[in-house]
């Protein structure tokens, strides 16, 4: 394990990168997942392909800073620049192995809210909305979300399901409702990694990040969260992972913000 200091964002990126398997077609999204893709692609997943809903497929990650997935450095070297609906076709056919979704709020069944806090007719907070989040949640084979671990973000029940995880948590909820993919595989937070029972259900703590405790996780989670029987410590970023992260975010815009 590396002795180097690292930020919590760097840890999250490293953990996220390990979710990417070689050969995966990845719906990349923005911010930390872009870095996670870059790290994976340059280590254990050299044949992964990245999809961007704006209408791009890439192999190599962009080598310049991206403010959005549509920025020119993300187009340079693209394998395919096309319509969003063509990219979505691959998603709808079940060909996307892994998707990343950003979220403001997640609940114990992995449902994400990026739309409304409070009554949608007169919301307390109007969030930006789904973008492609719901599409990824419904159609990708598995998906992962990254989030700051705060009690107001990890709630018992989201007030509005933008991107469905396991719905009401009952077994087979996704299949019964016609959702295509397997749902959320992990919630990577600033404190821990949460995972779900096979086939869906309530999130549990699979591993706690180095230096963090399960007690902290419990106090920052709005439901009575359980630990896995084999709960472990999240492996810290390796030197290689950190080097790769810092290569793709040299200014630390995303990981040292």
């Amino acid at each position, binding site marked *: 394990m590396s002795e180097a200091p690292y930020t919590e964002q760097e840890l999250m990126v490293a953990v996220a990168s390990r979710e990417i398997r070689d050969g995966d077609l990845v719906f990349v999204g923005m911010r930390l997942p872009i870095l996670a893709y870059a790290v994976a692609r340059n280590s254990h997943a050299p044949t992964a392909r990245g999809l961007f809903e704006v209408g791009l497929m890439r192999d190599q990650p962009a080598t310049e800073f991206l*403010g959005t997935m549509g*920025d020119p450095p993300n187009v340079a070297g693209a394998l395919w620049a096309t319509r969003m609906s063509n990219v979505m076709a691959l998603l709808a056919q079940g060909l996307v192995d892994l998707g990343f979704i950003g979220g403001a709020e997640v609940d114990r069944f992995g449902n994400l809210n990026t739309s409304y806090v409070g009554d949608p007719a007169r919301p307390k907070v109007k969030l930006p*909305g789904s973008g492609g989040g719901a599409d990824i949640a419904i159609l990708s084979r598995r998906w992962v979300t990254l989030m700051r671990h705060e009690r107001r973000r990890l709630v018992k029940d989201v007030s509005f399901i933008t991107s469905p995880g396991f719905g009401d948590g009952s077994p087979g909820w996704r299949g019964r409702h016609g959702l295509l993919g397997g749902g959320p595989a992990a919630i990577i937070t600033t404190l821990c990694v949460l995972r779900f029972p096979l086939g869906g259900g309530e999130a549990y703590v699979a591993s706690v990040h180095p230096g963090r405790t399960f007690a902290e996780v419990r106090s920052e989670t709005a439901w009575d969260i359980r630990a896995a029987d084999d709960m472990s410590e999240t492996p810290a970023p390796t030197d290689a992972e950190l080097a790769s992260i810092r290569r793709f975010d040299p200014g630390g815009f995303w990981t040292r913000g």
Partner: protein
Amino acid sequence: MSMAQAIERFVPDGARVAMGVALEPLIPFAAGHEIIRQRRRDLELVGPISDSLFDQMIGAGCVRQVTAAWVGNVSEGLGHCYRRAAEQGIPRSIVIHDHTNFSIALALWAAAWNAPYIPSRTPLGSDILNRNPGLEMDGDLVRVHAVRPDVAIVHVQRCDAEGHAQAWGPMGITEEAGLAASSVIITCEDLVDPAVVLRHPNRVLFPETKVAAVVREPGGAHPSPVQGYFNRDHAFYRDYAQASRTREGFDAWLEQWVLDLPDRSTYLSRIDLGALRMSDE
């Protein structure tokens, strides 16, 4: 045609207007600002995401309804004018028809083919279904009902005077928005001779019969990027996010960058476009 003329003629009050159809790139900010200057009202904005343009038009009071997948500021987060309108009805209340990126694309394809709807798995299991009458459950599927814009405003790299528009980079929902719309306004970096674009008829985006106006407006997408021309002006988005946190801040921003300016060239004289220019295509 000048931008002022194009907006005057083809974007009436109450129009359903598709903008920002390439997602983050090629957003027709200059057209949006002219709409604001002409104090257009009761528009329905249609798009996937909009990276601040919809937020500005909402804050300026032009908008009655938003039919979109995402409204905010992509690198900075929330759209503060969108928040104020949805949460407090400031400057006016708006109707929101939530979509996903895929569903708004399907809604436009349905309109393009004059199909009443396209059935889809998206957005099954999402509460978006309850917030948009255009997304209707039908057994195990969602009927994504057609959305037909009155006008699509599309910024492109080059176009000729006859409306043969060519753009490159990721295309988002550009093609289906233009086909679905009753008419298209093109704003372009370069107004070129027909021979330039017609050398590559495969790259022409829309049938010229849909194109109502072509406006030469170099830099008209700033602060959004234009592949081969300009990078995204991240700082401008950051400054806008800061300024628009309060209504007063937004109003001051709008005066400074839109209302007090006669046209786009004055706006551009205050921007260091050279610093954003791409070195190669």
